[in-house]
């Protein structure tokens, strides 16, 4: 408030000055003007759509007595959710997707641990900085391009893997898992690297001084300390796999993931697609709630 009394320029009172003074004195108004646009956008365009989708998932189609015409019933019911739980194929696909998400997470973790350890604890500072950039950049290099590249590489007829190594997982579940593990690897390396970088070297030295060999130090000291970082990385690898459906189409052969069913049903039976799409969302909410207790969310 000092400005209003000390500064003589304020007495000139141009329109801009007056607006500025009003805003300065009313933080709430300032907040409303700042937040109004973005919040309205997010609520109208996005949250509204999400709620609408949730409502849609409670509708269902019903055949009329002739069995020829499908009628949309808009009385809320859990019919679609019941169908998700009761139908064998939907359960199988859900478990397959969860299994793939777990597999991708484990593969990425096993690759990320040594790489991140090298980056954080062994590489010289300039190498370390270069490596962070080098690991992050491919994330942005075209999701679909990378999927296509793996299609070219996995192809049992003439693909790199088959020609050079004599074997290729080919197009199927394992090919999809390999491709997804490739796609999301940087999401695991970077958080694990930050966790290791924050880990004081003195802890590792203390462990060595007390007689622990490298392996034991890693298991007993390093791993427990960087657990939140690992969980943070796994949120990305797990969630991204859970929602993916393009890679199954590109390198999965006939493999179907949750997303493929949602995509297929989307045009045929939107209420059911909406209900099935809540499966990954619910899984992620449970996963995030579990991760929260380990303090991993601060790592994101």
């Amino acid at each position, binding site marked *: 408030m000092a*400005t209003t009394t000390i*500064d003589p320029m304020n007495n000139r009172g141009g329109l801009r000055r007056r607006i*500025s*003074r009003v805003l*300065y004195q009313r933080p709430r108004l300032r*907040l409303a003007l*700042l937040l109004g646009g*973005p919040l309205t*956008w997010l609520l109208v*365009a*996005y*949250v509204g*759509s*999400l709620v609408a*989708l949730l409502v*849609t998932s409670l509708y269902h189609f019903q055949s009329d007595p002739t069995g020829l015409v499908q009628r949309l019933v808009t009385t809320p019911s859990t019919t679609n959710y019941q169908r998700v739980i009761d139908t064998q194929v939907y359960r199988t696909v859900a478990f397959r997707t969860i299994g793939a998400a777990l597999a991708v997470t484990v593969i990425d973790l096993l690759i990320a641990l*040594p*790489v991140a350890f*090298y*980056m954080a604890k*062994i*590489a010289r500072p300039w190498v370390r900085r270069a*490596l*962070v*950039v080098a*690991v*992050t*950049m*491919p*994330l*942005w*290099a*075209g*999701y679909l*391009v*990378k999927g*296509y*590249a*793996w299609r*070219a*590489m996995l192809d049992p007829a*003439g*693909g*790199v893997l088959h020609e050079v190594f004599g074997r290729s997982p080919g197009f199927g579940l394992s090919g999809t898992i390999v491709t997804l593990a*490739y796609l999301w*690897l*940087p999401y695991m390396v970077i*958080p694990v690297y930050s966790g290791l970088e924050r880990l004081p070297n003195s802890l590792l*030295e203390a*462990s060595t001084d007390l007689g*622990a060999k*490298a392996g034991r130090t890693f298991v007993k*000291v390093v791993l427990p300390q960087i657990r939140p970082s690992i969980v943070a990385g796994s949120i990305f690898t797990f969630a*991204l796999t859970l*929602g993916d*459906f393009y890679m199954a189409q590109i390198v999965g052969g006939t493999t179907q993931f949750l997303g493929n069913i*949602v*995509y297929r049903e989307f045009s045929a039976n939107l209420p059911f697609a909406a209900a099935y799409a809540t499966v*990954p969302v619910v899984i*992620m909410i449970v996963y995030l709630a579990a991760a929260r207790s380990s303090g991993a969310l601060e790592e994101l």
Partner: protein
Amino acid sequence: MYVSRPARYALAAFTALVLLVLYFPILYIARLSINTARSYAWPPRGFSLEWWRAAYHASGPRDALFRSIETALLASAIALILGTLASFALTRHRFFGRNAVSFVAVLPIALPGIVTGIALNSGYHRAGINLSLFTLVVAHATFCIVIVYNNVAARLRRLSPSLEEASADLGADLFQTFGYITFPLMRSALLAGALLAFALSFDEIVVTTFTAGAGFETLPLWIFNNMFRPNNLPLVNVVATVVVVLSIVPVYLAQRLSDGAVGVSGR
């Protein structure tokens, strides 16, 4: 912890191998774009700019390129404005529901793309809006807001409030303080946020699948629609290379501008 010399070399070698695997697929496609053979079979054969010439003259990829750029420019412009406003609101004010607001901002990239996609699609449908460039831009802007927000908010948190207070004490009004002090200090963060938003939008396909009008093919959609047609593979290789360059260059620039803040959470 003592890591023996052989173990150090082993870790270095493993890291190098992982980097090779990370970059090989991308470089392989770039190499294929100047292949003489039509197939993507190993090994690549010969060198030729034939496919680049063909892609340049083909209307499909060019239209798709312009559509992608148009979408990404519009979406990142909207995201730049909304994300910046939101970052000021959330870093400079404490209010009830603040956590809820930041949660809602992150939601579009935290939920699987397919959920965001079908939600927006059915939202448009309910509101009676036909799919078009407009609906696509709205969708992209929605998930780009958080990218800009992350970058700008990180910069605002680092800015010392004493600079703005000094400006106010010297008699500047809010707009002058913003124009002379705050804006110059956050300019590079704004640019970095916008570049990342551009790259994210340019590369996006899942939400795009559900929110682009019929026949409105962005570059990633064009690649997907053509990668199963053996005759079009040479063009796909060229277009894929262009996509990589056009998404990595803005991110590289953003990285330079934002003192290494382009991390995983930026995405």
